[in-house]
C-alpha cells in the first residue's frame, strides 16, 4: 500500500518537474487561465495579438470552444471562467456556480450571411429590401409568411441565382446546443407572437408550431455557430443561401482581409434583430482578471473591434471598417429583447423534444 502511494507521489513529482521545467525554459512565467467560450469567440482568443495582450498582463488564456447553451450545462470544474454569448445564459451559469459578478465587454447583433443575387431574389419576393446606405434588411414578418406557405426557392419567379427545390429557410444551428439558435428563436417568436415578446411560459404554445417548423424543416443542424459560418465561407451557396450568424463573425473576417469573404457575399440584417451580449462569468480570481482586462484594457477592446464585436467605443468598429475598405456596419434601429431565460428555455426544450418524436 505504502509503495503505491509513494509511486503515485513519484509520478506526480515527475510530471510537475517536467511542466515547471518547460515553463522556466520558455523564458517567461505566464499564469495559465482556462475558459470555456462560445465557439464564435474562439478565433478571438486564438489571435496572436490577443495572446500577446494577455501575456503583457502575465496571463496565458486557453479556451475550449463549445455551444453556448452547452456551457450552461456542462461541468465547469477546472475552468477559471465561462464566456457564453448571451446574458441569460451567463445568468444561468452565475446561479449554478453561486457567482454574482459578470463582465459584458462586447456585443453583436444577429445577422444573416448571404449573397447579393440571393438578396435580390428575396427582394423580388418582398422578403428583403436594400436600404439607401446599401445594406440589406430581411423583413422577418414577410419571411415567416413565406415559410408558412412552404415557399421554395424554385417558386420565386425568374430565379436563376438559386433555383433549388428547397424551402426558403435560414440555416441555423441546433436549438438544443447553441446560443445563436436561441437568438433566432427570440426573433421569430417575437414576430410570430404579433410583434411582442413572449412574456411568460403560458405564451409558448401559441408560437411553438411556427417556430419549430423553422428549425425542423431545415433538416440536420450543426451544434455550434462556427460550423455553419465556416461552411458558408468554404462552400458558399453550395452550403446554404442564408446562414444565421453573429455580425462579428462576418465583420471579423472582412477586417482580416484574408480573401475568405468573396465577391457577392453580403451580410443582411433581420428586422427585427436581437443583440447577443457576450458575458463572461468568472469562476475564480484568475477568471475575474480576464473579465476585467477584456472590459478595461484598451488594447483588448481594440482587438475585440478588430474581430467585429461592438464595444462601448462606437467608433472602433467603423474605424476598422474604413481601414478594411468595407461599408461601416449600419446603426441598429429595430432591436428587440429576447424573452426571459425561463421562457426561452421552455421554448427551446419544447422544440428540441420535437426532434425525438
Amino acid at each position: 500500500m505504502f509503495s503505491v502511494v509513494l509511486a503515485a507521489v513519484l509520478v506526480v513529482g515527475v510530471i510537475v518537474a517536467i511542466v515547471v521545467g518547460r515553463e522556466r525554459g520558455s523564458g517567461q512565467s505566464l499564469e495559465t487561465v482556462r475558459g470555456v467560450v462560445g465557439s464564435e469567440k474562439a478565433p478571438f482568443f486564438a489571435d496572436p495579438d490577443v495572446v500577446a495582450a494577455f501575456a503583457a498582463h502575465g496571463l496565458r488564456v486557453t479556451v475550449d470552444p463549445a455551444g453556448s447553451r452547452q456551457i450552461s450545462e456542462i461541468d465547469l470544474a477546472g475552468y477559471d471562467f465561462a464566456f457564453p454569448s448571451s446574458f441569460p445564459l451567463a445568468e444561468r451559469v452565475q446561479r449554478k456556480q453561486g457567482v454574482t459578478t459578470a463582465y459584458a465587454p462586447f456585443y453583436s447583433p444577429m445577422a444573416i450571411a448571404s449573397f447579393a443575387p440571393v438578396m435580390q431574389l428575396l427582394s423580388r419576393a418582398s422578403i428583403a429590401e436594400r436600404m439607401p446606405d446599401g445594406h440589406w434588411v430581411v423583413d422577418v414578418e414577410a419571411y415567416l409568411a413565406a415559410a408558412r406557405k412552404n415557399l421554395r426557392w424554385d417558386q420565386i419567379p425568374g430565379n436563376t441565382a438559386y433555383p433549388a427545390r428547397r424551402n426558403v429557410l435560414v440555416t441555423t444551428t441546433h436549438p438544443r446546443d447553441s446560443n445563436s439558435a436561441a437568438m433566432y428563436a427570440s426573433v421569430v417568436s417575437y414576430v410570430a407572437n404579433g410583434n411582442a415578446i413572449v412574456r411568460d411560459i403560458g405564451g409558448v404554445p401559441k408560437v411553438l408550431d411556427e417556430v419549430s417548423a423553422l428549425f425542423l424543416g431545415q433538416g440536420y443542424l450543426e451544434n455550434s455557430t462556427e460550423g455553419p459560418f465556416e461552411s458558408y465561407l468554404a462552400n458558399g451557396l453550395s452550403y446554404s443561401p442564408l446562414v444565421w450568424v453573429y455580425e462579428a463573425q462576418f465583420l471579423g473576417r472582412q477586417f482580416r482581409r484574408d480573401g475568405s469573404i468573396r465577391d457577392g457575399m453580403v451580410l443582411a440584417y433581420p428586422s427585427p434583430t436581437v443583440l447577443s451580449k457576450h458575458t463572461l462569468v468568472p469562476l475564480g480570481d484568475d477568471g475575474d482578471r480576464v473579465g476585467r482586462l477584456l472590459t478595461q484594457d484598451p488594447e483588448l477592446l481594440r482587438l475585440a473591434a478588430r474581430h467585429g464585436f461592438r464595444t462601448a467605443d462606437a467608433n472602433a468598429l467603423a474605424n476598422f471598417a474604413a481601414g478594411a475598405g468595407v461599408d461601416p456596419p449600419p446603426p441598429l434601429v429595430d432591436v428587440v429583447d429576447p424573452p426571459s431565460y425561463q421562457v426561452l428555455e421552455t421554448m427551446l426544450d419544447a422544440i428540441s423534444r420535437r426532434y425525438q418524436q
Partner: protein
Amino acid sequence: MKALALAVLLLAVAGCSPSSPEDDPNTLRVLAGSELADLQPILDELKRATGVRVKLTYTGTLDGVEQVYSGQAAASYDAIWFSSNRYLQLHGGVDQRIGIQTKVMSSPVVLGVRQPVAKSLGWDTKRPTWTEIADAARARTFTYGMTNPSASNSGFSALVSLTSALSGSGSALTEPEVTGAAPQLREFFAAQALTAGSSGWLADAFERRVRGGDPIGGLINYESVLLSLNARGTLPEPLVLVYPTDGVVTADYPLTMLTGASAEARGRYDTAVEYLRRPEVQRPIMERTYRRPVVPQVATDGRFGGGTLVEVPFPVHLDVANALIQSFNDVTRRPPSTIYVLDLSGSMRGERIDALKSAMLGLSGADSSLSGRFSRFHGREQVTLVTFSSQPANPLTFVVPGDAPQPVLDEIRDVVNEWRAGGDTALYDALVVAYEIAAEQVRAAPERVTTIVLLSDGERTSGRDLAQFRDFYRGLPSQPKAVPVFPVLFGESAESEMAEVASLTGGRTFDGRSALATAFKEIRGYQ
C-alpha cells in the same frame, strides 16, 4: 525498487510509457470509417510535424454508431471520425457521448457516368435532376452501381437525395413522403446493376466490369472516389461527373471527441485539428484524396465541378432515417437471392459450429443490435442453404415474405439448430451445386440480386479440387458466371485458394476468424 517498478507500471497504465511505437503516449485513438485509410500519408506527416500520432481503428458505419451510443467506444477511443455524424446524432442520448466536432474535408455523393452514356443522355452538357436520372433508369438507358444504404454512408446519402427529390419535398423528409416515394424508388433500383458494402470496393468492382467488357452506365459514389478512379487512369476514358441539380448530400468528415476522454487526449485533438485545417495541409488533402477543403483560404481546383450544389435537408427523425433503410431493404431494392455454402465437416465440431449457428441465427432475427436489425434476411429475400461435409447435402430454399417474415425465419432457425458436424470437406463440389442452383434461380427470376457465400474452416479433402472448379466455372454461360462468391476465412481456411475463388468470380474475401457473426453481417452489404 518495488516502488519504482510500480511507478513505471502506473505510468504504463496511464498510457504514459514511451516504449514501442504501439504504445506511443502521444497518440489520439480514433475509431474511424475505413474510407479514411487514404489519409494515412497526411497523418504520418502530422506525426512528424507535431509529434501527435493519430491512430485510426477501422469499423463499419453502423457498428461505429452502435459503439458510440452504447458508450462502448469511449472505453477504447478518444475520438471518432466517420464520413458524417448526421445519422449518429439522430439517436437519443448521443449528445452526451460526443463532444466537440470539427469538419476536416468534404465530399458530395454524386454520379460518375461513362462518357458514351453521358453523351447520349445529354448529361455531359446539362446537369440532370434526380427525376430525369430516375427516368433514364426506368428506360434502362442508365444502369448503375451504388452501395447498400444500410452498410455504407454513400448509398444512404444517395437514398436521401433521391427520395427527397422524387417526393418533391423542399424540407426534411417525413415518413409519409418515404412511403409515398416507394413506387418510383422501386423503378429506379430495378436498374441497379452492381451493389457493394463499401464505396471503395464499389469503384473497384465497377472498374472490373468496364475492363472485363461488361460495362454498366455509371456509379453513385463520393465525388472523391470518382475523381480518384479517374486519376488512376485504368478506365478506357474518364467518367463524367454528374451533379444532380436538385440536391446532394455531402459527407463532411467531422473529427469528433468522445466525452470522457482525458485532457491530454483533448490536447492532442486540438493539435491534430489545427494541423489538418492549415491551408498548407488542406491543399495536399485535396490533391491526394480529392476531397474538398473546408477552409476558405484554399479554393477547389477545376476538377471539382458542378457549380452550385443544393444540399438536401437531412432527416431529423431516427424513425424517418430507419424507414428509408427498411423500405429499401424490404420494398424498393431488387430482392436478394442469397446462397450460403456452409462447411459442416468434422473439423467444425465444437466452438466453430456454434459460431456458425449463432451467425446464421443472428441473420434470422436473433441479433437485436442496430447492425443486426438491418442485416436480417429481408422481406422478399430468397435464402438457399447448401451445407456440405463429405458431399453436398440437399439444398434448402426459403423465401421470406415481405409482410409476415416471422414464420419463415423460424423455419430457417429450426434448420440451423439441427446442424451437426462430421465427415470430410467436399468444398468445391458444394460450390458447383451452388452455381447450378444459381443458374436456375437467375433464369427463373432475373430481377433478383444473386450471390454466394462460402464458408469452410479448412482445405478441401474430398470431391473436386480448385483446378477442377476453375474449369467448371470457366465453362459456365455468362449467367450464372456473373454471380460472385464471397468466401469467409475461418479456422484453417485455405486463404490463397479462397482469395482465388473470390477474384475468379468477382467477389471478395471476408475475415471471420476473430468474429464470424460480424463477417456475416458485413457480407450483407454485398448481397
